């Protein structure tokens, strides 16, 4: 569905992404992990058109989106959320989601219906009239998810949407993502919380220093020494391995 082909991005002398390629298959969940500053967000920006890659090609459903502006990418159905929350602070939760809904529904009444649905899916019903800026960061992240959902996307790209959630909340979100996947939405997820990525991802891509160092199933990735060294750390790596073994049993 999404093909990232040899994408590089340079800021002056700094190489943020160096020839990264991977594919996202339709209906799958792909995790993108790596240390802070590994270039995950930059890659996201390149895919969604916020940045123009220095070289390489990105295509979505067979259409070359490398040089398209972000709004065109979004109209094609590849929608993202942001690492640092970008909620529309002065508007109500409902209006925030409505903005997303308008992408597919020009008619105001229908767009409102769609909005109501998305709000309900993301457990924001109670807060629908609150000012978005008043919400806690975690809720704002959920709001971003709702807004992205309202655009009726084919590919949803989540950038650290679970940071700052407790384990129980993470589990809830994971279930939500699963159910959405079952409805046919493809996911590309950047996340530091391994509990969230490992159980649901069909494939994990690991970046370090702007280079792809691994691309494999989650079980295989946690075994990878390079990944453990660069990212998970010894202690955590072991724990993940244990977890995945348990799950294997």
């Amino acid at each position, binding site marked *: 569905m999404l093909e990232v082909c040899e994408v590089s991005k340079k800021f002056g002398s700094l190489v943020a992404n160096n020839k990264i390629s991977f594919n996202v298959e339709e209906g799958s969940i792909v995790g993108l992990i790596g*240390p*802070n500053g590994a270039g995950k967000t930059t890659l996201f920006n390149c895919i969604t058109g916020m940045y123009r890659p220095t070289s390489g090609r990105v295509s979505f459903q067979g259409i070359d989106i490398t040089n398209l502006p972000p709004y065109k990418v979004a109209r094609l159905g590849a929608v993202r959320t942001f690492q640092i929350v970008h909620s529309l602070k002065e508007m109500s939760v409902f209006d925030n989601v409505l903005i997303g809904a308008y992408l597919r529904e020009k008619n105001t009444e229908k767009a409102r219906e769609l909005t109501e649905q998305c709000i309900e899916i993301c457990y924001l019903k109670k807060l629908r009239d609150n000012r978005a800026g008043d919400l806690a960061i*975690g809720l704002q992240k959920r709001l971003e998810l709702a807004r992205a959902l309202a655009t009726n996307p084919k590919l949803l790209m989540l950038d650290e949407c679970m940071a*700052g959630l407790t*384990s129980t*909340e993470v589990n809830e979100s994971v279930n939500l993502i699963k159910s959405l996947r079952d409805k046919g939405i493809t996911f590309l997820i950047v996340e530091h919380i391994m509990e969230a990525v490992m159980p649901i991802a069909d494939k994990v891509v690991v970046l370090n220093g702007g280079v792809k160092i691994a691309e494999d199933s989650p079980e295989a990735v946690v075994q990878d020494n390079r990944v453990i060294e660069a*990212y998970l*750390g010894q202690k955590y790596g072991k724990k993940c391995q244990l977890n995945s073994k348990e799950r294997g049993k």
Partner: protein
Amino acid sequence: MSEPLLKIDNINCAYDDIPVIFGVSFEVKAKELVAIVGANGAGKSTIMKTIAGLLHPIEGVIRFKGEDISRLRANQILRKGISYVPEGRRLFAKLTVAENLELGAYIEHDRNEIEKRKKEVLNLFPILEERRRQIAETLSGGEQQMLAIARGMMSDPELLMLDELSLGLMPSLVESVMETIVRIKERGTTILLVEQKVQESLEIADRGYVIQTGKIVQAGSSRELLNSDEVKKAYLGL
């Protein structure tokens, strides 16, 4: 039993007239590491901000070393010996590491004292020593977090409050940040910690409080909390 270092008595807080905290009381004793854990939006950071003086409680008293500080402004509270490392680092992005540290000790005017503290702090975080002349925003996420803690240490506080240190950090860095906290505690600084990562934070803490929708629902030593069923169910996802 001596007077606790920080004693919070039945405070209520509100953002713009929307009440967030309802009658929270707890205390921190000297040289302790206390963790406050809870779900998103439960009001943990609000409590921290209230103690640090960025917000003022509507009702209730905050006592530090027996003195009422609930009406003081942030800069006055710092002078009393409470340092707060805010959520999201809040570094001065365009200044160098050294200047950031210097500002951490803004209330101190004795040059020698500042240099001494700087040396101490840089000892604690050797990585910053290499990057003294670098602009803060060019540091990596982990280094920025280190700098934020280091800056908080520069005022030589008796009580260090750390808010959401692990937010957006990769697992291996979370580990090292936690280790750093333990080291700071061993130096004799009292620490109040707010975390979403319940497991990790309770593992290093002496005591913990669980907070839910603006109220404290559970308190006890960290071992008790880790083993309690409610906590397990609500926060550890087990």
